[in-house]
């Protein structure tokens, strides 16, 4: 028979009630997820802004240094040599290359003189030609946190140099034998990621060729180990391992971003020689690799003037650092046109970034290279009969990204680059006759007991780290910021409107970020939304004591801490 009408009504009512409840929960959950997503992007933009602001500083270095010279007490014993060593041309922010040059054509072999291996050394003893067995020993010793002895490191580097010298600026890879080739992006000293790649994709060999697209070192803790493993693979398979130079295979960058510091720490009394060898070997790295005449792989990108014929003829060894004019050029104003053209070609290849807007502009974000648009890519690929440009240089949340209508593929192989959980790493397998690109993603975890972390926890961790980094930057400009805040605080209440607060931060720090959205994470707010601006500087341990006498030297020093370290390291390596 069925239910009575009243039962039917009750059932209908219940169904509606249930439906409403379900929709409520679904809507509530979607709101939560959207919030997480927005926070994730916000965090990402903090990291990127801070990273590129740092790189841009590199080229603004000369301003700081001139200021510093002013406050240094002249000791009367000719400050001239010091000034000359750091003479920076007023037109461009570069160093005098005198301090960087090879000291009088020193025979590199002499580096090994007097370098005996102590009996207490527990690491592997290398003999050449290198074998797979020895590579395993090297990896094992790295696991035990040992450093490869300076003697063997230098011998390895000498061998790498010998082979690189026989290779052209642009290398040509073919998949006719192996039927595939793997491309890896930035590794930046993340040894665990390199191991993850080899674990997933196998070690390099005749049947398993690899292209490593630059930025092996700096930033991560294990740059030395990464580059030694890569170079070992290279000397064992010089025709199947392609090493492209990145903007971080560069002495000036290494001074600032950690590689030199790491070498000093790991090689101690021998570090000077090792650093010298790396400086030299990096300048011998090829600039690009072409696969089957169809896919070009280079670290940064291209510009509207990129010309492979010109690039092929350059003496790439002249560029110890791509941030400086080549070799013996002492002053940018005395460079001839040809040199300038060549320098720009190299800079563009290693420093450029693709942008969605057509055209080609100087890359002001980085301070070097260009921004190139889809039209530039199209015409470059057409001109050279390529079908794809693979590059790296920029961290991507998914480890890779296609842009310019699929004509550009960015691949970035350092997972957790900014922080645990910040991004995946990836590599690309190019396979088959059609040269299909298959991307493999991963995220390396450190501890074996690492439990699966929820998406929320990941966002929280990464966000906290980003805010911490941002706060450091804020603190470095505390004096300027406080004075800006106080200007807006007409009634001396300790609070200013959120617009004023956001405005002050943007003006003083010169970074574009969603300040309104970040406001509550950085400072305390009143009930009406106004910001208690002094709390902007809370919760961060001040490492130096603020003396309170105007823009203290401490503050200036702190703000340029990284710059300072670069300068002192420079003095150290060349005048010690």
């Amino acid at each position, binding site marked *: 028979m069925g239910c009575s009408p009243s039962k039917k009504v009750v059932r209908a009512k219940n169904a509606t009630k249930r439906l409403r*409840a379900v929709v409520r929960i*679904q809507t509530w959950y979607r709101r939560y997820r959207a919030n997480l997503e927005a926070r994730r992007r916000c965090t990402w933009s903090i990291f990127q802004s801070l990273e590129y602001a740092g790189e841009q500083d590199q080229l603004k270095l000369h301003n700081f240094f001139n200021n510093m010279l002013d406050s240094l007490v002249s000791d009367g014993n000719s400050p001239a040599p010091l000034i000359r060593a750091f003479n920076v041309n007023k037109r461009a922010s570069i160093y005098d290359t005198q301090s960087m040059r090879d000291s009088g054509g020193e025979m590199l072999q002499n580096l090994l003189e007097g370098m005996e291996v102590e009996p207490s050394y527990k690491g592997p003893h290398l003999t050449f030609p290198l074998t797979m067995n020895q590579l395993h020993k090297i990896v094992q010793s790295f696991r035990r946190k040992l450093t490869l002895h300076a003697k063997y490191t230098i011998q390895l580097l000498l061998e790498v140099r010998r082979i690189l010298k026989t290779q052209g600026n642009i290398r040509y890879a073919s998949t006719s034998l192996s039927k595939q080739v793997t491309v890896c992006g930035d590794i930046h000293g993340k040894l665990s990621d390199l191991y993850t790649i080899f674990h997933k994709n196998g070690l390099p060999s005749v049947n398993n060729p690899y292209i490593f697209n630059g930025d092996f070192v700096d930033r991560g803790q294990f740059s030395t180990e990464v580059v030694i493993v890569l170079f070992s693979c290279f000397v064992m398979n010089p025709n199947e391992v392609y090493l492209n130079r990145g903007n971080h295979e560069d002495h000036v960058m290494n001074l600032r971003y950690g590689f030199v510091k790491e070498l000093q720490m790991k090689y101690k009394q021998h570090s000077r020689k090792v650093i010298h060898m790396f400086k030299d070997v990096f300048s011998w790295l090829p600039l690009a690799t072409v696969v089957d005449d169809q896919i070009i792989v280079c670290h940064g990108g291209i510009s509207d003037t990129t010309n492979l014929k010109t690039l092929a003829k350059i003496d790439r060894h002249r560029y110890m650092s791509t941030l400086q004019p080549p070799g013996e050029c002492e002053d940018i104003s005395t460079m001839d046109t040809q040199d300038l053209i060549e320098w720009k070609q190299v800079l563009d290849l290693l420093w450029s970034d693709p942008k969605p807007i057509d055209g080609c502009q100087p890359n002001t974000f980085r301070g070097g290279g260009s921004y190139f648009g889809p039209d530039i890519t199209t015409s470059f690929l057409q001109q050279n009969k390529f079908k794809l440009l693979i590059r790296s240089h920029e961290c991507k949340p998914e480890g890779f990204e296609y842009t310019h209508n699929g004509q550009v593929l960015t691949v970035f192989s350092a997972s957790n680059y900014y922080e645990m959980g910040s991004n995946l790493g990836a590599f690309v397998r190019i396979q088959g006759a059609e040269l299909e690109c298959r991307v493999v993603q991963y995220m390396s975890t450190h501890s074996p007991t690492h439990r699966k972390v929820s998406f929320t926890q990941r966002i929280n961790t990464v966000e906290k780290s980003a805010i911490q980094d941002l706060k450091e930057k804020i603190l470095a400009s505390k004096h300027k910021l406080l004075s800006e805040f106080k200007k807006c605080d007409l009634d001396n209440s300790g609070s200013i409107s959120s617009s004023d607060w956001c405005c002050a931060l943007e003006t003083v720090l010169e970074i574009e970020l969603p300040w*309104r959205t970040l406001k509550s994470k950085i400072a305390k707010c009143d009930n009406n939304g106004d910001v208690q601006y002094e709390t902007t500087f809370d919760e961060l341990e001040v490492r130096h004591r603020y003396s309170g006498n105007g823009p203290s030297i401490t503050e200036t020093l702190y703000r340029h801490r990284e710059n300072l370290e670069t300068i002192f390291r420079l003095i150290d390596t060349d005048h010690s």
Partner: protein
Amino acid sequence: MAGTEEKDNADSLVADIHKKITEAFDLFDHESNKTVDVREVGTIIRSLGCVPSEAELHDMLHEIEEEEPTGYIRFEKFSIMMTKVLIERRYKPTPDDQILRAFQVLDTEGKGYLTVEELTKYMTEEGEAFNQEELEEMLSAAVNPDKGNIQYKDYVSEMSQEDT
């Protein structure tokens, strides 16, 4: 005097809202050309604190889409609509106690928890159904690892703490 002060406050409120909208929009503007993918508009709106249902979202999109749907939403139209929504405080989020009650309604046997099957069925078969990804993510946080079910009272209070 009071009149102008009020007007000033109103103006600065609108200016502030406008800036907030701009910031949220820019976060999703991948090509830096003042457009966003239409599929992300829901996320942007929600990140600004508004909680329209899918149906309401559909209506909002209809208002701001181009006549010839391009797959993109432009900033100007979005901003105008969103400013109104924020000033009128539409689509305010549901307070937590009501969410708790919603869970209780679904808990027809009054157990104090929901099984994974129950929640899955509701979320994916009724109302404005979740897709697989949404379901998996919700379950990954909602399921109590020791008990193997959804202790919804704990879940709701955890979520409200994490949601800043």
